[in-house]
């Protein structure tokens, strides 16, 4: 009987010793991580100056259609009649006819403002984030059309599925309070 209780004591001693060391290990891991912890939440966002419009945003996002959409920085827009983001390079006419449009889902609305200016508005419900218009606008225009991750659609995955395959590493973690890198005001920020 005494032998039994002794072995039981030994077992309990080992148990509590192990428990203590595991608690210490957990404590030190969390302590070390705490030294680097931030209170802000991070979200994913595309740096438009690094984006190469490869088109993967349309296909790699876990959402269908993608949480990446084209946004329009109106401050930068030239309101061109011949919009490189709206028309195919070999367009027959500068009209809203479907065969002239670059966008595969006709998500860009073109509206006449005054001679010779036209306004372009993105219909985000139709946009799939393929970046065809962004490519055209960056190549021929001011680059006012660019891709951004829209945060009421984005699930904020632990690791962004697009960031993993982004060829230019343009998708980064940014603080949730500045969750957009819109070209106009963003470029001002960079200069200062």
């Amino acid at each position, binding site marked *: 009987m005494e032998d039994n209780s002794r*072995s039981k004591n030994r077992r309990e001693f080992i148990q509590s010793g192990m*428990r203590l060391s*595991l*608690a210490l290990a*957990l404590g030190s*891991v*969390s302590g070390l*991580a*705490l030294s*680097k*912890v*931030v*209170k802000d*939440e991070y*979200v994913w966002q595309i740096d438009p100056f690094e984006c*190469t419009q*490869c088109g993967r945003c349309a296909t790699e996002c*876990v*959402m269908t259609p993608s949480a990446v959409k084209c946004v*329009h*920085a*109106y*401050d*930068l*827009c*030239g309101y*061109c009649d*011949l919009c490189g983001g709206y028309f195919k*390079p*070999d*367009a*027959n*006419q500068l009209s809203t006819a479907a065969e002239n449009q670059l966008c595969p889902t006709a998500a860009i609305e073109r509206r006449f*403002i*005054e001679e010779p*200016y036209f*306004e372009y*508005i993105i219909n985000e419900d139709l946009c799939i984030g393929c970046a065809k218009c962004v490519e055209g606008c*960056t*190549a*021929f*225009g*001011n*680059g006012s059309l660019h891709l*951004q991750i829209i*945060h*009421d659609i*984005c699930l*904020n*995955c*632990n*690791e962004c599925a697009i960031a*993993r395959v982004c*060829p*230019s590493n343009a998708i980064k*973690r940014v603080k*949730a309070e500045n*969750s957009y890198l*819109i070209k*106009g005001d963003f470029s001002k920020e960079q200069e200062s």
Partner: protein
Amino acid sequence: MIKKMKLIFFLFTVFYLFSTGISAQQQRFPKPEFESGYEQPSTITPEPRALALEYFDVLVLLVVLSLATWLALKKRSRQGILWLSVFTLIYFGFYRNGCICSIGAIQNVTLSFADPGYAISLTALLFFILPLAFTLFFGRTFCAGACPLGAIQDLVIFKPLSLPKWLNKTLGIIPYIYLSLAVLFAATGTDFIICRYDPFVGIFRMDAKFHMVVLGISFLLMGMFVARPYCRFFCPYGVLLSWMSRFSRWHLTITPARCIQCKLCTNSCPFDAIDFPTNEKEVVKSGLGPKKFLTYALLIPLWMIMGIFAGERSHTWLSKANQDVYLAELLISNPEMKNDPDNIDVQTFLASGKTMETLVQEAEVIRRKFYFGSMIAGGFIGLVVGMTLLNTVVFRKRQDFEPHKGNCVSCGRCMDYCPVEK
């Protein structure tokens, strides 16, 4: 008119080609001054989920964990745990879309140690620590009630089969391998494989790639007969939880008072996590003894050396999962790929102006990390294999039917079978 347009386009193209890099972001066309009183719309930027809601998730986790613990240890109610896991499935699964989760948080913690530029968010850290701390005191109540992945598998258990012991032990090594790979890939900044190959997240989101849907559904189908296959044979967080649970202070017990050896609970556990009383006669017959124990203990360093060797051998192959290493390797072995206009990665690299030397240098740094990382991972897996074997020859005296503290997920099924009153 059309000709003129084409000419303009041509000029722009030429202009573009000559001016990339210098004036790519320059305003080519000035902002118009409108006369018709047109007002510029502003760019719409919907805000991300509020920070307060993220902290609310932590609070929900804390409440669910406490409730699961209370239900398993104090109230001893299987019914309660069942309903709690339904809530978890709805909240953390279908409402929060399976992200944020404690299993994936392993990678955030790893990355925060490995990458000085990465700051871990408080919510991710708490999701990692809270369940482990609870488990250290109360056993794996997290698995029973607070894990959406566990909940969805627990609900589909239909006719659980008892697996033979050797199969249980062998498959039980997979989580250790998965954990080492996940830590290795996260530490080298390559990939978060736990999140990418989470079989149920596609079901929670009702949207996933085809192969992930197939994986998720096959896990659920398998789960009808092999209870909780992901938890037992894949979950990397389960490894950490089982370490904690083995030495937990208070753990769920099958009987509220004294075991009367009625054997009613023996078939109640779908996870083969009930240890039977030891039959000393059988132990003597099987020839377990100090001699065998010593041999197996001495074999552990050998297993570890084998693991380190295997890690060293496979580090080149493993490192190819990293995009930079892959690209550098591709361009060295197939230089003709540079002329392939369809390879987006190669074309982007060439257009970025980065030299081949910098790319190779960066790739070498990452490969070096893989070299040490794979050896550590290999050694760890070797240790696990050795310890698993050693465990098979260790004889522990047991008089009653007890839950195996490491493997028991505290689901509480066995408690319903116990006829003993408090």
